[in-house]
């Protein structure tokens, strides 16, 4: 589904429904890690590991072990008083129902190398590629929570009722606590759906080794999360979407005789999961690297490339190219100033800070990363030409 109305319009309307919105701190992660001040990020991210060295310190080892206990309780149960958290131990979604201004997906930067260390480090691909997989996994999971939040809000506007709040009350009700002391604190079917989306988004884009690593990551998680493979197929995904939305709406469906279980309905259409929808969901990055024993710049995320200064040899090479390619470079330069699209295949080319980007079919440009320090320093465009000329084979 594509989003026509901005989410802000829905949030505005929710304010008119009594008890539909509330205030909660979005930066209380479900695991114990010192939160920092969040910054924003874009959906497509590129990582730089130039300053990263894998530490062997008690702080780092404990951070990795703490996440492992919560993500994969089958391997090591969390200590008493700590709840299993599945993927949410690495990233989480703060609802716009409870955070009007700072809702969105929260990812502590430390989650990227920790995820790598726990599940991907054996893969025969570069660390930055593994980090990119970790990033994509976390976003694919959390965007489902955003999509469900959005679909719920639609039903709230239709019913003029605080459906999500009522659901949260039911999950935390005294009756539930008394009858089910060991119950999950989360909606299991929604977590299965979210992990199913991870497989749907990434399987096919990664090699078989990475795929089995992701399946292992999912299968080792707590109840609900570990059923992600049930939502991998279209039919399974639709079935879990229906069950998730019915879980939120059950009392309303029952009370008003609404038949959401009708197999002729495709409730996946109510979930915004397309690229356009992703752009409406803010992504917040928390730099907590020092809290886990890493240096502050150990994981650098490059979310845009700007300003770009063209060197003389670059300008000379550019002038020799076809006018269409010159226009393509101008367009790309503008795009990179706002974000790094996946299609641009932006990747590190040489360890000394040279990055490569796709300009057009068969043509690339090389950019020199500015040295650490003042952020105003420009990226230098140093080479442009066809694959062969630039050494890409």
């Amino acid at each position, binding site marked *: 589904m594509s989003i026509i109305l901005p989410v802000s319009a829905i949030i505005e309307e929710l304010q008119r429904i009594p008890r539909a919105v509330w205030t909660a701190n979005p930066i209380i992660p479900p695991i114990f890690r010192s939160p920092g001040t969040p910054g924003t990020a874009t959906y497509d991210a590129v990582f730089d590991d130039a300053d990263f060295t894998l530490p062997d310190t008690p702080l780092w080892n404990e951070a990795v072990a703490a996440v492992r206990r919560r993500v994969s309780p089958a391997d090591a149960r969390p200590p008493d008083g700590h709840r299993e958290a599945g993927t949410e131990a690495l990233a989480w979604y703060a609802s716009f129902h409870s955070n009007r201004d700072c809702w969105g997906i929260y990812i502590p930067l430390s989650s990227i190398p920790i995820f790598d260390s726990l599940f991907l480090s054996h893969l025969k691909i570069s660390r930055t590629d593994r980090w990119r997989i970790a990033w994509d996994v976390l976003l694919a999971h959390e965007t489902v929570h955003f999509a469900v939040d959005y679909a719920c809000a639609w039903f709230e506007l239709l019913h003029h009722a605080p459906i999500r709040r009522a659901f949260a009350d039911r999950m935390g009700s005294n009756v539930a606590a008394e009858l089910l002391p060991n119950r999950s604190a989360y909606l299991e079917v929604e977590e299965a759906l979210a992990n199913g989306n991870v497989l749907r988004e990434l399987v096919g884009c990664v090699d078989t080794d990475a795929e089995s690593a992701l399946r292992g990551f999912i299968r080792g998680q707590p109840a609900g999360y570990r059923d992600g493979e049930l939502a991998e197929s279209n039919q399974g995904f639709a079935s879990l979407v229906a069950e998730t939305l019915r879980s939120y709406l059950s*009392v309303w469906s029952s009370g008003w005789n609404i038949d959401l279980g009708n197999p002729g309905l495709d409730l996946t259409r109510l979930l915004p999961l397309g690229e356009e929808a992703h752009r409406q969901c803010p992504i917040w990055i928390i730099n907590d690297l020092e809290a886990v024993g890493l240096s502050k710049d150990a994981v650098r995320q490059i979310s845009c490339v700007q300003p770009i200064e063209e060197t003389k040899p670059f300008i000379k090479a550019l002038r020799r190219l076809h006018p269409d390619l010159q226009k393509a470079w101008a367009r790309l330069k503008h795009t990179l100033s706002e974000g790094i699209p996946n299609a641009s295949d932006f990747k590190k080319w040489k360890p000394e800070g040279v990055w490569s980007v796709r300009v057009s079919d068969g043509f690339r440009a090389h950019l020199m990363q500015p040295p650490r320090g003042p952020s105003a320093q420009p990226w230098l465009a140093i080479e442009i030409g066809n694959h062969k000329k630039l050494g890409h084979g």
Partner: protein
Amino acid sequence: MVEERLAVWDQEPQILRWQVRTWEHAVLFPKSWGETSSVRHSERILPEEITAPIYAALFAIEQDILRYTEPLPPFSERLLREDSNNFHEMLFKKNPILEKSISDVVPDWTVKVTKALGEDIDEVRRKVRGAGWSLGIPRDCFSVQYGYEIRFTTFLGRHLHVETHRSLLMGCGCEYMPPSIVRDLSDPFLS
């Protein structure tokens, strides 16, 4: 109109609790008494080619239960929309296999099971009896339901709305306050 809407919220919802119970699961997990929360979770000891029609029927009934009831997490119980008597009739009318003899569904059942279990049959028989199937492993003349059953009970959720919808009902004078302008107007006085 207002009365009708109130009537909807005043009616006591029917709750459905259901379990799958198979002798095969009991053999593998004696402490479970063969009970699981869904067909998917019922472990099997017999090969698929013997029990396929039985599990297909169990699965079909389970799908109907899921189809005509609403989930109510964190509880495993579900909200029933149909009248419970009609619901029971509808389920088993659509899926009559469980009420038949097991050999009508799986011809030569006893022979096939004996062959499949081989030398383990005495141990299996002992475990099945220990888990509550006093007549042992199902035989040809037994009904399918003896060994494979979906049990469900229904009851009224008297305080369901109150206990699960405090945000709707917080401070309301009456127990069941439907979504309405009255509720909205009363809201500022409640918080």
